[in-house]
């Protein structure tokens, strides 16, 4: 155990300039055009987690504002703020003072905008209009379809593709070199397999593996990932499948409460776990059908815990079927 303070690698190696952003060539090209003209419209970044949306926003701010970037960029997260009113107030306070430097506007980056209800998005749209002279909004979302049309039509849309294995690998090797890690081919493969194009995940997994083992190979990576994998959820699924519905629900309750996972996260993990199970074909297909259905219901409905209970009941039923 060393006493030195270690920086979080996702931050240490977060690109400062657009040029260094991993992948997203098209996006970067268009963003650079904004930098050249010093002009910016409202933007909508759409794409899965860990593909560079926030990084691009920060890099863009770096390039537009230079060392004043922190003062001219307000980072907000829709899933953290307790309502549109709080967001509006923060925007108001931020927009009150003039931008520092030779740019005419400040940037407000609103991450996970798709967490806002339609109603809140309507309010956000009015806020965007109120500050057109002094602020530019960059909204980030996993799915552009969850953003209401009036906002979409006011933004330039940027689609962030999932990163390819090659792009993730390059970045991991770059970090490996800087940190003087001993990474084996099998280790890289394992990380790619687990991270599935989510660079944040890949880098965190790399750092965690490096903390536990000198040699980063398949073995070390899987050891960390299996330790990191929420075993509780796996157990929960297995309990339900083996007919222990009550125990499965109790497990689920404690997962929701103690780990504070949202319904969508739990379902995503159940999905992953079920795909890895050794069960008869028709049962697997039946399970996937139900998981997909409840993934949808969690989004449409109002009570995550109820939806997850109902999904567990379906898993329990499929487990009982001959």
């Amino acid at each position, binding site marked *: 155990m060393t006493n*030195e303070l*270690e920086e*979080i690698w996702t931050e240490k190696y977060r690109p400062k300039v657009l040029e260094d952003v991993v992948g997203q060539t098209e996006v970067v090209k268009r963003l650079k055009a904004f930098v050249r003209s010093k002009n910016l419209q409202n933007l909508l970044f759409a794409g899965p987690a860990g593909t560079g949306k926030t990084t691009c926003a920060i890099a863009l701010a770096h390039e537009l504002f230079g060392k004043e970037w922190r003062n001219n960029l307000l980072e907000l997260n829709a899933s953290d703020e307790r309502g549109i009113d709080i967001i509006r107030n923060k925007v108001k306070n931020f927009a009150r003072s003039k931008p520092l430097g030779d740019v005419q506007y400040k940037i407000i980056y609103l991450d996970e905008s798709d967490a806002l209800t339609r109603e809140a998005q309507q309010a956000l749209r009015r806020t965007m209009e109120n500050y057109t002279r002094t602020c530019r909004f960059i909204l980030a979302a996993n799915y552009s379809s969850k953003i209401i049309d009036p906002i979409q039509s006011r933004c330039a849309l940027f689609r962030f593709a999932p990163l390819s294995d090659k792009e993730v690998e390059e970045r991991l090797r770059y970090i490996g070199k800087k940190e003087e890690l001993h990474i084996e081919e099998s280790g890289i493969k394992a990380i790619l397999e687990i991270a599935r194009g989510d660079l944040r995940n890949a880098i965190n997994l790399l750092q965690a593996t490096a903390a536990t083992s000198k040699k980063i190979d398949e073995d070390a990576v899987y050891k960390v990932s299996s*330790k990191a994998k929420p075993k509780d959820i796996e157990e929960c699924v297995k309990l339900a499948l083996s007919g222990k519905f009550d125990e499965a629900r109790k497990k689920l309750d404690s997962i929701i409460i103690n780990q504070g996972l949202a319904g969508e996260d739990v379902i995503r993990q159940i999905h992953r776990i079920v795909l890895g199970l050794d069960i008869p074909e028709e049962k697997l297909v039946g399970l996937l059908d139900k998981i997909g259905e409840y993934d949808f*219901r969690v989004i449409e409905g*109002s009570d995550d815990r109820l939806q997850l209970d109902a999904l567990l009941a379906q898993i329990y039923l499929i487990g009982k079927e001959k």
Partner: protein
Amino acid sequence: MNEFIPWAEKYRPKSTKEVVGQNLAVEKALDFVKNFRKEKTKALLLYGPPGNGKTSIVQAIANELNYELIEMNTSDFRTADSIKEKIGHAVTQQSLLFKKGKLILIDEIDGIYGNADRGGLPAIYKVLEESNYPIILTANDPWKSSLKTLRQKCALVQMKRVDIRSEVNKLDEIAKKEGIEVEEDVIHEIARLSQGDLRAAINDLQTICQGRKVVRKEDLKEIEARIKEVQIFDTLLAIFKSKDKKIIFDAFNNSDKSPDEILLWLVENIPKEYEKPGEIAEAFNYLSRADVFKGRIIHNQAWGLQSFVNELMCLGVAFAKREKYHKFTRYSPPGILVKMGRSKFARASRDKVAEKIGKVCHCSKKRAVEQFPYFSIILKKRKLEIELEKEEVEYLKKYT
């Protein structure tokens, strides 16, 4: 024939001394109105079951102190505008009548249901802030989550059910004033049936006295046993043991619990009642569908869907059973609430840590939580450059 005046109105207390069985509440309310000063708490919230004298206290106080009483109830709450129109001016202007002061009564505030009354609650907050006069609100159930902010703005005074002794005395007094001879047993029975709802008791008394000079025990069967609020266990029994729509809806609609609470109770007890996996899965499936409709109500203000939520919930669960189980089930209260309380600490530290990591890593708390396992593993071996308290580091270490 004489015009029909409900006795419950006719014998409403004219002064606070006539208010039955609520000495403590009377004292507090009177004190609040008499010593009202603008800068202190502006509003008092009287709460308790129906018919126990909440409104009467307020009216009696206004009468006694010769204040102008401005009343407002559920039907006025629909929109912010209607509230402003009704009391917006009244709370700042002086009384136009020749009265000593003004008292504002906002009755049955829990009748404001969710967002249905758009802007209703905020408009009320505004009234509370601006008012130059004392405001008393009443509610049956002040613990609805939608009333949280309101609760913080008011002093709360609880009013219990009226005790049976006081009810008997009042009923006796009314009978005497009406010149009707009512047997003591009858009065006692009426009071008992009312379960502390004095207004209901007086209504029953009036019904039974209609066209009589003397009321005897055998006349009692004429008044229907009052349908009191159905206790949650009976609601559950109806849904779990019956397939009769009427029985089920009656038990649901008259329940002392809100649909949301009933849902939680059902979720908790389905696996206790039903034994076949198919039944359990189907019952949960319909609860899940009901919740999807609830989501649509919330997201799209599709209020019309509420009845489907209720119906899917009741009938979906009831019809999921092949046959009723002839067994005694000990139904238990929703567990999640209990556990939520216990795990409050865990959730608080989780949120704190997630916030700190989110800030450093430019991500939401939710995403930060997803990455906890990795940080946990790293922290067991290394020190990380995040400003975490010692116990927060411990929390993370224990995460895996």
